[in-house]
């Protein structure tokens, strides 16, 4: 009985999905916006990575919102985890030489890779969010790998975070000044596929990279400090 009911259910679901997919043409785009971005994207924004031109240029305001959401999440987390006394760590034994030396060797190289990802956001896959996450993963590696390492300066992290957020907003506001709307791409667009192209897009993505990197590192730091 149960088998029969479940079989009938599966058949109904299969027919439902089949019918709804029938209307979607395979391999052709129905979306006008997508067609527009693919055709005019490079010409209008100068960025060869169309995803970046949508994220930072066509929908730049939305990205500002996303960055704010991340910022609020970090603030909320540190408020929840806040303690007057720093959490006591039970195991302060120094980690193995392999791990410790390996972390020290890899950390600057990971930072460079993260920077490479967010500097080339308008040319290659990836961008500010991804590059920032890579930078934060480098900090996480050092924090986990060398247990005695508590040296990094929290206030410098906060300053980096605030400054990069400020740069994003100021660059956007200058657009208002130059041509009348927020996040207008007022810098020369250059030749597509060169590093110095696409106007304000690389500047904003570098700011986002710094912001996301310092924010996620702050979250990791909060979690580890609270014990």
């Amino acid at each position, binding site marked *: 009985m149960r088998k029969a009911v479940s079989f009938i259910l599966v058949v109904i679901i299969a027919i439902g999905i089949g019918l709804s997919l029938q209307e979607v043409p395979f391999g052709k785009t129905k979306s006008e916006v997508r067609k527009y971005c693919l055709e005019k994207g490079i010409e209008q924004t100068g960025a060869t990575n169309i995803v970046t031109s949508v994220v930072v240029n066509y929908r730049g305001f939305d990205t500002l919102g996303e960055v704010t959401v991340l910022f609020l999440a970090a603030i909320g987390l540190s408020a929840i985890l806040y303690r007057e006394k720093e959490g006591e760590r039970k195991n302060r034994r120094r980690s*193995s*030489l*392999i791990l410790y*030396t*390996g972390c*020290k*060797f890899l*950390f*600057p*190289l990971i*930072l*460079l*890779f993260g*920077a*490479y990802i967010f*500097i*080339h956001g308008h040319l290659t896959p990836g961008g500010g969010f991804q590059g920032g996450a890579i930078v934060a993963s480098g900090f996480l590696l050092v924090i986990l790998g060398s247990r005695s*390492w*508590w*040296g*990094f*300066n929290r206030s410098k992290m906060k300053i980096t975070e605030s400054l990069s957020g400020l740069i994003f907003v100021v660059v956007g506001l200058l657009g208002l000044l130059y041509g009348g709307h927020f996040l207008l791409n007022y810098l020369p667009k250059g030749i597509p596929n*060169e*590093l*110095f192209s696409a106007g304000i897009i690389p500047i904003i993505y570098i700011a986002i990279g710094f912001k996301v990197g310092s924010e996620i590192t702050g979250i990791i730091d909060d979690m580890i400090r609270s014990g």
Partner: protein
Amino acid sequence: MYKNNNYSGKDRIKGFLWLFFSLFILWLLLTSTFYYQEFWVGIVISFIIAITTHEFYIRLGFPPVTPKRFGFFILYIFILFWEIIRANLDVASRIIRPSLPINPGVVIIKTRLKSDLAKIILANSITLTPGTFTLDIQEDRLLIHWIDVRATAIEEATEIIGGRFEKYLRIIFQ
């Protein structure tokens, strides 16, 4: 960033230069072009990261660069690849034989290498070759898990597991 300011100026410059050139070579590999924009941005980025994090590279134990050392380093890469292929075939043949001729156990080997970097290169080379795995390093002793324990005495085990890599590493690092 790292709370230790007892390094001398010479140590700092050496650490900075090693880090700067490692970063710049990595940048060239990532961008794979010598186009002037990428080149100069790479130099600036490498410089900024090297200035802020060069303390990580100070006590790693990089050797001075000489043509002989560089040549042996290139040779070492090929030796390592050859050993990895050999060990792969060895472990694979052990696995597919129905009698499963393994005799796993943990042995201790000794190394005469001094610098941290040389020790972790040795440890990682041993880990990369299938069948042997470095569990830990303490002072000059390496704790190795071995799929087929052929020798338990320290000298003998050192010769079989570490000897094939260490003779090259000693030329490169000492």
